[in-house]
């Protein structure tokens, strides 16, 4: 409640500030930065982390910027209205943080050429519209190393949301890493058709554990799978946020998203006039993915292996999607010596050799 109160105070202050400006007393007005979230900021997952990024940026720039956000914006016609309203109300820069905001963002960007737009996870760009995305597969690779070493039943469970390239890519990443440390490892994938539904995620976690899985990795946003893991005495890895508090024993570590570096960098670029439209990918190297709260109860060799994989990816020594690599249908999907480009990464629609599953149509 205190947080709300503060927001409210800030709102009043900024309103007072705006009033002061309209009388022409001040020389420079703060840059206005808007954020559009698909979920509630209290989801403790995707939108929560974006909002943390916003608050970090606010703290970094102080009164040089003024940030606003709209949460729970449905992906559809409503999104366009929200984004347009933001552009109309004098925002200089607008971040839209869900894939489904792509077309509305593009449309509004065309209509407001003087406003800068940044859209997360999409692929449409324009003179005033950039895209940015996380290299989540880097985090998955580290998760796969730990999972492969920790599983005693040689079965890793993956709670998957929707069969889109990001999720498919990450499943591959987990499996190739796990296989590199444990040749007998198998992966069981369970599609739950949602990004966020604690009950369903919990059901899926339990169903996987029933089938002999003893390490859980999730591509959904609630801490429910970790809580299930804790109850059943298996291991799990947190997603998007630091979920250590939900499962003191089961939690191995969390791969936390950190959007603040990108938000701070982008705002600075616009202030300096150096911003250019681009397709930005951030991972360990940019500190936008963080291995958070490694559990003390992990064996020393697992901790070492996790740190090594993280450091190797961060330094660029290790690039997970490097050929030769075959799909599980026997097709050569990455030529020997080739590393997938960002564009190719965005289109991964095959499982690698050894994954005993098909991608749902």
């Amino acid at each position, binding site marked *: 409640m205190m947080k709300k109160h503060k927001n409210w105070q800030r709102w009043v202050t900024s309103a007072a500030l705006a009033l002061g400006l309209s009388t022409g007393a001040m020389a420079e007005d703060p840059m206005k930065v808007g954020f559009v979230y698909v*979920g509630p900021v209290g*989801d403790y997952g995707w939108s929560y982390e974006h909002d943390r990024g916003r608050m970090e940026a606010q703290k970094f720039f102080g009164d040089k910027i003024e940030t606003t956000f709209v949460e729970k914006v449905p992906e559809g016609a409503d999104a366009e209205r929200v984004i347009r309203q933001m552009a109309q109300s004098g925002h200089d820069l607008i971040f839209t943080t869900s894939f489904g905001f792509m077309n509305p963002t593009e449309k509004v960007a065309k209509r407001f050429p003087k406003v800068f737009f940044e859209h997360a996870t999409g692929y449409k760009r324009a003179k005033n519209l950039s895209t940015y995305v996380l290299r989540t597969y880097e985090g998955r690779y580290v998760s796969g190393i730990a999972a492969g070493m920790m599983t005693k039943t040689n079965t890793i469970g993956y709670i998957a949301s929707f069969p889109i390239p990001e999720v498919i890519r990450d499943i591959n990443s987990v499996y190739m890493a796990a296989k590199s440390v444990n040749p007998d490892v198998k992966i069981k994938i369970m*599609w739950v*058709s949602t990004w*966020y*539904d604690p*009950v369903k995620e919990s*059901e899926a976690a339990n169903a996987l554990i029933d089938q002999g899985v003893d390490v859980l990795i999730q591509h959904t946003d609630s801490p429910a799978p970790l809580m299930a893991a804790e109850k059943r005495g298996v291991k799990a890895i947190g997603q998007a946020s630091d979920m250590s508090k939900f499962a003191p024993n089961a939690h191995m570590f969390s791969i936390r998203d950190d959007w603040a570096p990108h938000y701070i960098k982008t705002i600075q670029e616009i202030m300096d006039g150096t911003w250019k439209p681009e397709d930005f990918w951030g991972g360990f190297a940019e500190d936008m993915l963080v291995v958070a709260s490694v559990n003390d109860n992990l064996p020393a060799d697992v901790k070492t292996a996790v740190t090594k994989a993280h450091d190797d990816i961060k330094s660029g020594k290790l690039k997970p999607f490097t050929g030769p690599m075959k799909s599980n249908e026997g097709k050569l999907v990455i030529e020997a010596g080739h590393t997938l480009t960002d564009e190719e990464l965005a289109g991964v629609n095959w499982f690698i050799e050894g994954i005993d599953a098909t991608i749902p149509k």
Partner: protein
Amino acid sequence: MDIDLITNILFATFKTGTPLILIALGEMVCEKSGVLNLGQEGMLLVGAVVGFIAASVTGNYFLATFCAIFAGMGMAFLFGYLSITLASNQVATGLALTIFGGGLSAFLGTNYIGIGLEGIQVWSVPLLSDIPVIGKVLFQHDPLVYLTLALFALVFWVFRSTRLGLKIRAVGENPEAANAIGINVQQIRFMAVLFGGAMTGLAGAYLSLVYTPMWSDGMSAGRGWIALSLVVFASWKAERILLGAYLFGFASILHLVLQGTRFEVPPNIMAMLPYAATIIVLVWLSSDAIKTKMSAPKSIGQPYRPLA
């Protein structure tokens, strides 16, 4: 498929079905009395957040469960005051309650995000829980699963063989006639609405104190709506609600377990199924003849204004 797996599926079925039964039974009583409350999702979230806050502050789950029930009743009181006392449009009021509940719960829960609790523990029935298979499936649950079955029995009995059940039905079928024979229509309806709120609040406690002992915005993820359609499917009969809810739970677990086998159903079809079925039933129900056949309460959704 081995016996352990089947045991686990059946065990999970009971857990998954429980919140649906609670919400649907409460809503059924409400609708039987002629009031359609579409605010289930909002009441559920408020029940969940209040239960969670009470549990994290006091550490007493018994007390927390009651707080959740009272929170649900508080929301229901608001709905009752508007839709019964002031005779507002029930559909609009219910939808407003859902939106209000979503916002209120998010506001109340701001400082409780990111905390996990122990949750209400399993309460095994002595002796019976040692029976192989059946013991695990039926007698190793948390207290709320048993309480839900007791509440089902209560509702079933009230409508089957009590005057109160008859009165509720009379009010829902023909409030004018009920009024004429001296039944206080508004009082009965208000009580039914409050009962519905209590049940939904309890279901909220089940989500935030048993199933996933935590709070996050919108954690009910549409269960209030599914329960709402369940009432229609069950054609306002308690025993069918029980069956339907467990069937729904069973189907959703089975769908997960069957993935990767040759019995696989495409996950997106499964995810869409409850909603698609709801639409079909609602379209189907818009015909009056079918409505009668389905034994829908006749005056459902119509506010009653006493003449005096």
